[in-house]
């Protein structure tokens, strides 16, 4: 079985069990459902809320460099800290946090393979204590925008096929049958997908226990849709967190060089006046 391109970007639940409270390790839970942490969490873990701490709460954007520095400092994270992130929904927003940490140049950041789901299902110790993090002095690097796609790049990719577009939402969102995941509020004016995008739902990259599928299976999954690393790839979903999961798979597990996450995603494209939209299944 082939190894992941960057196995160091993942840790197992057992690794966290052994090392989660080491002085140079900081474990952070990032959930879609921000109440999940309070129910129970990995002992020693702190929490970041994706909707208040991992984005600019005034304009729509990820954290600025200064905001990221403030978050890391307040969380007791230094440049040489091993940052381990995990969360619910198979690490959706954990991957979003990982993506931002890489944008701002944190060297040693890892996802806990299987996330919150695997930890709980294994019957491991949990805690309801919120640990106090002694503040640190954190200096981030300037944003590495080679990891992020903005609207003009996506428009060019769609029009000129300069990059492969991977839509990681559910097939029903892709076709336009539903405008948001079932049960969640609609957040766009139009349904469908960006012309030229391939439909590869994020969940196909995960096993039932929440861990990532083996490298060979991932390579076959994306390869059969023409996503083989030979040209740039842009992943998108609805708001950018599911596509962070796929971005992680393509960049860190398969080792593709040029992979970006379009965090504007369908809430930008599907609300854009005059943007071309395709409906129905992929051709």
């Amino acid at each position: 079985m082939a190894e992941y391109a960057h196995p160091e970007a993942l840790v197992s639940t057992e690794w966290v069990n052994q090392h989660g409270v080491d002085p140079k390790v900081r474990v952070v839970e990032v959930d879609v459902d921000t109440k999940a942490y309070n129910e129970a969490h990995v002992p020693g873990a702190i929490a970041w809320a994706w909707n208040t701490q991992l984005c600019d709460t005034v304009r729509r954007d990820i954290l600025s460099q200064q905001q990221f520095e403030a978050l890391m400092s307040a969380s007791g994270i230094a440049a040489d800290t091993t940052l381990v992130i995990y969360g619910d929904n198979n690490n959706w927003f954990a991957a979003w946090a990982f993506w931002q940490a890489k944008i701002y140049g944190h060297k040693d950041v890892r996802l806990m393979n299987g996330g919150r789901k695997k930890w709980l299902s294994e019957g491991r110790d949990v805690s309801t204590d919120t640990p106090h993090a002694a503040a640190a002095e954190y200096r981030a690097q300037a944003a590495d925008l080679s990891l992020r796609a903005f609207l003009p790049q996506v428009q060019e990719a769609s029009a000129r096929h300069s990059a492969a577009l991977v839509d990681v939402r559910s097939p029903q969102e892709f076709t336009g049958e539903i405008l948001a995941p079932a049960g969640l509020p609609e957040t766009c004016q139009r349904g469908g997908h960006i012309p030229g995008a391939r439909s590869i739902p994020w969940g196909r990259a995960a096993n039932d226990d929440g861990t990532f599928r083996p490298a060979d299976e991932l390579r076959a999954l994306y390869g059969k849709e023409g996503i083989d690393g030979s040209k740039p790839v842009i992943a998108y979903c609805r708001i950018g967190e599911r596509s962070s999961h796929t971005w992680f798979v393509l960049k860190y597990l398969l080792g593709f060089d040029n992979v970006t996450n379009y965090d504007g995603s369908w809430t930008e494209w599907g609300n854009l006046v005059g943007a071309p939209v395709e409906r129905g299944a992929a051709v």
Partner: protein
Amino acid sequence: MKIEEHQERKVAVDGWEVNLTSYRLGAEWHAKADNVSPGATLCRTTGASREDAEEKALKRAEELLDRTKRHTV
């Protein structure tokens, strides 16, 4: 403290496939309903028994899923 009696199963709610997880944490039972595709959490509930927590989760999931509009493609 440990999660005990963790259980997960798929059920159909209002025509949608839902993943229902439940477990005991101390004296309290917890349940969580996710839509299977794409895997988003719908609700999280607690109860005095597994049945109680799961019933609340399914009721809330049904309310939420009932609001989902299917558009003609």
